[in-house]
């Protein structure tokens, strides 16, 4: 088990280097000149001298690989440079916006886990009951609705018509309800179906038949089914964490939520490259790390994975 974890951690290093290189390359392939952009956003006329001076200041006159190495080194120290717009450090900007996003994602995650686990388990236990059929109908609709539309619908109904929650911003607990619901709705639908199907599949396995033959009680049987089903859904559930955090981009913009998603979108509009680069690297790292944690956790749950690796 320990060797497995060490090997997996060592394996993510080349992946992270690859990610950083690709994100750096993509930004550099962008047709507009960062130096010119940096001047424009500060409303300075981009004369030739000004551009050259700015290039020097931003280190853009150096060759591509040298710039990459410098940027990578700085990134490792969490120094992503300064924003072109307000010249403040990018890491500070991100750290300021991060708590709001984490708060939103955490509420959405709790909603997703709670609702989908309960609904999935109930649907599997009462397979083909009316409740199960209705839930499956809702799942079908919820999976099909894009979340910007869901957000607007919820806002219209609960904030405008019923006036139960604020339409936007981050003020008090009620303001998180609508964005978190919007964010988690499609995940709730996906995971309810995943858990339901996985439990039904496990319910018909031979070891459950033998469990019943051994005279085990209903709750013990459900425990066995559940552990096996969780085992097969854990990868998907674990990967929902980075998806929820990165998925806030659209929701944050609809509900004017002051998180990193909105920071990133405004950075894209302003061509504020350092922020975009930092955001990409951060999200990619998040995905890789979460993937690693999920793998370790499932190896911990399932002895067969430990043996295979």
């Amino acid at each position, binding site marked *: 088990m320990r060797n497995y974890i060490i090997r997996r951690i060592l394996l993510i290093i080349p992946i992270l280097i690859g990610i950083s290189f690709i994100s750096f390359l993509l930004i550099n392939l962008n047709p507009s000149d960062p130096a010119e952009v940096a001047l424009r956003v500060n409303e300075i006329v981009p004369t030739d001298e000004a551009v050259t001076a700015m290039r020097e200041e931003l280190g853009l006159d150096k060759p591509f690989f040298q710039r990459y190495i410098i940027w990578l080194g700085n990134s490792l120290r969490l120094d992503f440079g300064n924003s072109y717009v307000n010249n403040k450090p990018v890491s500070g900007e991100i750290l300021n916006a991060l708590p709001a996003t984490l708060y939103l994602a955490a509420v959405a995650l709790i909603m997703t886990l709670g609702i989908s686990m309960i609904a999935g388990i109930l649907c599997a236990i009462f397979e083909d009951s009316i409740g199960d059929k209705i839930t499956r109908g809702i799942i079908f609709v919820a999976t099909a609705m894009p979340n910007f539309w869901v957000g607007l619908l919820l806002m219209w109904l609960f904030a405008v018509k019923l006036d139960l929650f604020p339409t936007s911003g981050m003020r008090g607990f009620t303001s998180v309800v609508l964005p978190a619901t919007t964010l988690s709705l499609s995940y709730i639908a996906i995971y309810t179906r995943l858990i339901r199907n996985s439990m039904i599949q496990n319910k018909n*396995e*031979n*070891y459950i*038949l*033998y*469990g*019943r*033959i*051994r*005279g*085990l*009680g*209903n709750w*013990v049987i459900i425990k*066995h089914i559940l*552990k*096996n089903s969780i*085992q097969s859904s854990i990868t998907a559930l674990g990967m929902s964490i980075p998806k929820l955090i990165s998925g806030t981009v659209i929701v944050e913009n609809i509900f004017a939520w002051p998180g990193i998603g909105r920071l990133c979108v405004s950075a894209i509009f302003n061509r504020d490259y350092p922020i975009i680069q930092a955001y990409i690297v951060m999200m990619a790292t998040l995905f890789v790390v979460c993937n690693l944690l999920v793998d370790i956790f499932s190896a911990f*749950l*399932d*002895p*067969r994975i430990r*043996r295979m690796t």
Partner: protein
Amino acid sequence: MTLLKVENLSVTDLRNGERILHGLTFSLEPNSCLAIVGESGSGKSMTCKALLQLTNPWLEVKGSVYLHGKEIPKNNPNEMQKIRGKKISMILQDAMTAFDPLYTIGYQIEETLCTNLKMSKKAAQAMGIEAMNRMGIYDAKNVIKKYPHQLSGGMLQRCMIAIAMAIEPDIMIADEPTTALDAINQRDVVEQFELLQRTTGTAILFISHDLGVVQRLAQKVLVMKEGSCVEYGDANQIFRRPQNDYTRYLVETRMALSQPFRKIMDREEVEVVNVKSAECI
């Protein structure tokens, strides 16, 4: 008194109206062995599942089952759960998939014994190890720490039998317990069944298509074909003078096939008739 009496047991598939079992009637006396024989798909396993009320929801089971003279109620899952395991144990054919892959064998043995015998975990563990020793698993202390995928099919089969034996049920249903085993393991398992019957008086319902094993263990035989009983009676009678054409066909063909097993069962005898039995194969 008859231990188990089955009257007119029928199973119908509600999805297409197809009848899977046609009115089976048989009984099992204490301290005896009834064998159900027949080819694959003849409804042998379905009979066991129907007895234990473990059929899929789309199958309709009709008929009455009496245990100790009392009818087992239908639609009473709690009552049935108390009977399963404790009064009627069953051994499955496919040992490789019969245990939950995420728990150790020891945990699953403990869990079973604790549920059925209302004992502490420690006592259950000791009892499990003892039962495994009796089944010829001598390193039981290591085996209980293993996960199902780390053990062989034969070993898992023995664990399954050990569980059933530790509980000492009134009736043990063995659904083709020797099919997945090689001839030497088969001999051990059959001997264990004989031992169990001698020491505890547990009645055995033995499902098999291996007539060699059946002849050795069973006092009574029920021959099945396409979900119906074609012949039911005394084992000697059926093996010597089969009344039904199908039974005769089965006895003739299958006896030849089970020669290797019998060779091992009667080692001394084999020495003498070695040449003869070799010709039969």
